[in-house]
């Protein structure tokens, strides 16, 4: 019975430990498990990958780095993680289950939950938190500067260009399209790049749209994940697989672009900003 009442208390402790650690972090963490695509991405950008001992299954590692994978970040195994002897596990508020995290904490492993919202402010917070935990303040300043530059650039572009009516699709075969609605990283990338996501008022997450709906929205630009586009056989393949897309204004002008899939996983990250910049340049 006691266990059931633990979670609120537990998260309160976590909050405190996060505040305490960011304020008082004396020694940078040496052995960190990164449980989130976004967090791994920032750790690598901070040049702190030597301090990582394992990552979760959503994380992307550069080809020259190979680390143990601890599984899906909501299904962490307490003992499996303990066997890696980490100082800390860093993930998002979606990390779990609480029972595992609780056990890790009892064994003296720090648990840090970082904000995972799809906003630029949340990304900046994550950079700061990780830089403090891992002890790379100089590199963080560099990242912030780059980010600021990119955001200014995005701002300028979106002010000068006319907003483009856009839809983003994922497709696993030549039969079905999933459209990105609200609360997706694809949506954030479109908005940062100054495009209008036509599906935003109608859908959340990735759902199929009817052919008639797609036609009536009259998109001027179609986006695909790079993987989907490759699988469908490029722009020509898309147009022949989906006649309805060929009939839209975007299909007629062949305005079909790819977004790097890595930028779409695990919320708004550094790669997502890069992709937004790349997209806005193509929109000019």
């Amino acid at each position: 019975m006691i266990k059931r009442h633990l979670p609120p208390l537990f998260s309160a402790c976590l909050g405190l430990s996060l505040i305490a650690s960011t304020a008082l972090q004396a020694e940078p963490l040496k052995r960190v498990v990164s449980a989130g695509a976004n967090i791994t991405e920032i750790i690598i950008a901070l040049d702190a990958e030597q301090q990582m001992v394992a990552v979760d299954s959503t994380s992307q590692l550069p080809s020259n780095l190979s680390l143990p994978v601890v599984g899906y970040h909501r299904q962490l195994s307490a003992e499996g993680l303990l066997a890696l002897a980490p100082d800390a596990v860093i993930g998002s508020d979606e990390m779990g289950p609480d029972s595992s995290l609780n056990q890790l904490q009892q064994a003296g492993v720090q648990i840090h939950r970082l904000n995972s919202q799809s906003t630029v402010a949340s990304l900046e917070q994550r950079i700061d938190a990780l830089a403090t935990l891992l002890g790379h303040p100089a590199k963080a300043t560099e990242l912030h500067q780059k980010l600021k530059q990119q955001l200014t650039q995005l701002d300028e572009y979106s002010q000068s260009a006319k907003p483009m009516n856009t839809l983003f699709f994922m497709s696993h075969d030549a039969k079905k399209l999933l459209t990105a609605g609200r609360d997706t990283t694809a949506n954030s990338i479109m908005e940062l790049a100054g495009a209008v996501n036509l599906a935003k008022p109608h859908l959340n997450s990735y759902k199929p749209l009817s052919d008639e709906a797609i036609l009536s929205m009259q998109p001027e630009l179609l986006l695909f994940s790079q993987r989907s586009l490759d699988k469908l056989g490029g722009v020509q393949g898309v147009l022949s697989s989906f006649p309805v897309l060929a009939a839209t204004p975007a299909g007629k002008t062949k305005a079909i672009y790819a977004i790097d899939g890595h930028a779409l996983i695990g919320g708004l990250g550094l790669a997502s900003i890069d992709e937004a910049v790349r997209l806005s340049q193509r929109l000019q």
Partner: protein
Amino acid sequence: MSLFSQHSAKPNALFSGWLLPLALLILLATALLSVTQGPMSIPVSDALSALLPFNFESDAPAHYQLVVTGIRLPRTLLCIAVGAILAMCGAVMQGLFRNPLADPGIIGVSSGSAAGAAIAIVLLGLVNWQLPEFISALAVPLFAFIGGFVTTVLVYRLGTTPNGTSVVMMLLAGIAVGALSGAGIGLLSYLANDQMLRDLSLWQMGSLAGATWSNIVLAFVTLAILLVVFMRKAQALNALLLGEAEAGHLGIQVQKLKSQLIFFTALGVGIAVSVSGLIGFVGLVVPHLIRMLLGPNHQRLIPYSALLGAALLLLADLLSRLVISPAELPVGIVTALVGAPFFIFLLLQQRQRIA
């Protein structure tokens, strides 16, 4: 009745000397294996001494204690209870339907629980009530239990006419209700966001990682109740093997027996599912192995199924922890990987018998 007890007395006498100690030894051995082995390599002696109630001076690292008693032990205990419950319910279900391929899954308990869990994960998530945390932690197991129970009752009602319960009708009703639950899950997955979908599919694969002491107590209380009820009905189940009418002639109230046993198997499977998600094939494979080894007498089939079910789930769980360490495989995948080929083997055997 006397015919049956006579019949069962002979093999009992043959086996009773060494059989029970052997089965208990297998269970103890697998339980010790489960406590001493895991992704973290802890010397067996340290693992065992961590289990002792007193702590003599040892230079073993302090976290060994936590890993053994805080992580492995609860899991081992939950495994024992869940494995035993599932295997026992499988044995009773097979006896009840006089069908060796019967499994708690086929009368719709599993799909009903899955639909219940989907409601808890997706609908409660969408409504987004700010429930106290301990209630939202309970929502999935509670809804899974309710879902499983409701479907069982529904299937039973559909299969029962004034003339009695028809096994064929119940199986068909199970298929129909299962399809309905499946459609419900499909609809809910359409409404779900990506996180909910992941949660739902992970839940459906079953895991014993969420072992808490309250779960363990619940599972063991259920196990004890089921063991008492099923053992008291074992003779009647034996009689039922002759056929419903014949059992009736032997003085057994067949209708009452069936509704009672269905109630208790639904209770057992519902609770097992609610604490561990869907773990298939234990209820199918274990009673079969026991029947092959010891014959169809329910007085032995039920308790030995419980013992072997516990041992088998312990081994499956150990595998699930070790195979892709430091990550963990849902245990339902391991039992299905072992169970499904065994199921096919059974089908082939049956086919030969028919041909």
